[in-house]
């Protein structure tokens, strides 16, 4: 089981940047373009890793520590999220709480680094990121609580084994919907934020990392890919029931599901426009409300 967990984690670390390529290819297919090479995210990361870093004199150690802290926190969270049964090796009761707080730690590091630069734009981005993630986090927690209440186990390995659709309770179908909205919000995708825009007035996530460069930026970009993988893995785990033909096939199925999620993100990005900033909290409040209704009905049963 330990070997399986290590291989799953290594596969995650290796394949995560490919999610960006999949999203890019889907968007390109919708727009009638050819799209970037599939290896482009890896090339970008390698290019950034080769460069040197420039630090502003305003910044302190907080700015330098942030990329490392955020990447480390996300990798630690990834180690806890299973890719098909059995659960990950370090799994324990209540591990979903640690996952949510590790994600919060990663976000907190980047937000503090953005404030550390002393730039007003980055402060604005940090404020938006903090506000929106404060709304997305309850939705994620509520989803985990629903899965917890319906499986009676506070363990991600059990909670993320296709609970949402294999059960007869129809309110659990709200879980994947809420998780998908949280995925879009947490990973700064359309309709919440556009990762390709560079207009400071409307940027959320990207504006916080304007002052990072070289290896630091590579760490943050790689962390973003891993975070997207993590949320896709949670969504896939909640939806796909295990096949029961051994852990390797379930692992392959989970990876396929994760890429299907990325393709779905690409479809959403192709067919939707960005929401205006004041409407984003409404979307997240709606996600929270749906999750709250599903939780109430799950507990009522």
């Amino acid at each position, binding site marked *: 089981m330990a070997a399986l967990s290590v291989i799953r984690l290594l596969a995650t670390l290796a394949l995560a940047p490919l999610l960006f390529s999949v999203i890019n290819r889907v968007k390109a297919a919708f727009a009638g373009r050819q799209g970037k090479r599939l290896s482009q995210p890896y090339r970008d990361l390698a290019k950034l890793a080769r460069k040197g870093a420039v630090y502003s004199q305003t910044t302190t150690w907080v700015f330098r520590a942030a990329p490392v802290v955020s990447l480390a926190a996300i990798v630690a969270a990834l180690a806890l999220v299973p890719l098909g049964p059995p659960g990950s090796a370090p799994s324990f009761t209540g591990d979903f709480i640690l996952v949510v707080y590790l994600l919060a730690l990663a976000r907190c590091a980047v937000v503090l680094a953005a404030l550390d630069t002393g730039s007003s734009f980055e402060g604005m981005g940090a404020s938006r990121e903090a506000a929106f993630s404060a709304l997305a986090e309850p939705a994620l927690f509520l989803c985990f609580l629903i899965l917890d209440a319906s499986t009676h186990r506070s363990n991600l390995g059990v909670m993320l084994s296709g609970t949402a659709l294999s059960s*007869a*309770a*129809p*309110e659990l*179908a*709200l879980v994947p919907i809420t998780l998908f909205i949280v995925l879009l919000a947490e990973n700064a995708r359309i309709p919440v934020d556009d990762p390709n825009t560079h207009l400071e007035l409307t940027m959320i996530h990207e504006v916080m990392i304007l002052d990072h460069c070289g290896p630091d930026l590579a760490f943050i970009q790689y962390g973003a890919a891993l975070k997207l993988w993590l949320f896709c893995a949670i969504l896939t785990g909640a939806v796909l029931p295990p096949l029961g033909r051994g852990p390797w096939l379930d692992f392959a199925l989970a990876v396929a599901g994760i890429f299907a999620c990325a393709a779905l993100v690409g479809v959403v990005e192709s067919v939707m426009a960005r929401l205006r900033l004041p409407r984003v*909290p*409404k979307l997240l*409040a*709606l996600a929270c*409300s*749906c999750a*709250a*209704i599903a939780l*109430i*009905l799950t507990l*009522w049963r």
Partner: protein
Amino acid sequence: MTVAALFEPLMIALILTNLALLVTSRTGVLIRLIALQGALLAFAPLFPVANLPAHLALLCLAVFTIKAVAFPYLLSRTLRRIDADSRIEPYLGGGLSAAAGIGGLLFSLWLENRLPVPPGLFAPLLFPAALTTIFTGLILVVTRKNALTQVIGYLAAENGIFLFGAPLSRQGSVWLELSILLDVFVGVFVMGIAIHHINKTFESIDVGRFCTLRD
């Protein structure tokens, strides 16, 4: 999947339309949502019975025609004619309204265990769905400034009451339901005319302006 297995998804869909009614900020969307709720509601009386009697089929058809087709048509015609601002200005914002709706759901789940109803009368989830729909209607009537939105709130409350009556409709209350449906239809018709007059008199359908009325 059996027909009975579709009942709970239907009730959850009704609860979700209530949530959508509470958070939407456009009158046009609100009209479409109340049409959707009416269409969903038309299927509700079908479930307690195994074979479909003719009078029940008539009721479902009448509900669908009036709630999913006629009301939305009348309301959107009124909206078009008065040329009003299609944004909804609430006294209570979308988030708080949604929270109030969820509070209503919690209350109705609590109340279901407290009421001395004969066991087996209400199918699972029917009572909370019906009471939540009534609460949604009340919240819409109380917290929205726009007269058209208040009519929609009244319709939502009526939808909830209809849902309460759905399990009883096989015991011969179909004609009562049909006559109520006719009354509601006339009510909406009259309200459309009243809104038109409100709009002409006050140059707006904001009910807050009624306070400026002097003789």
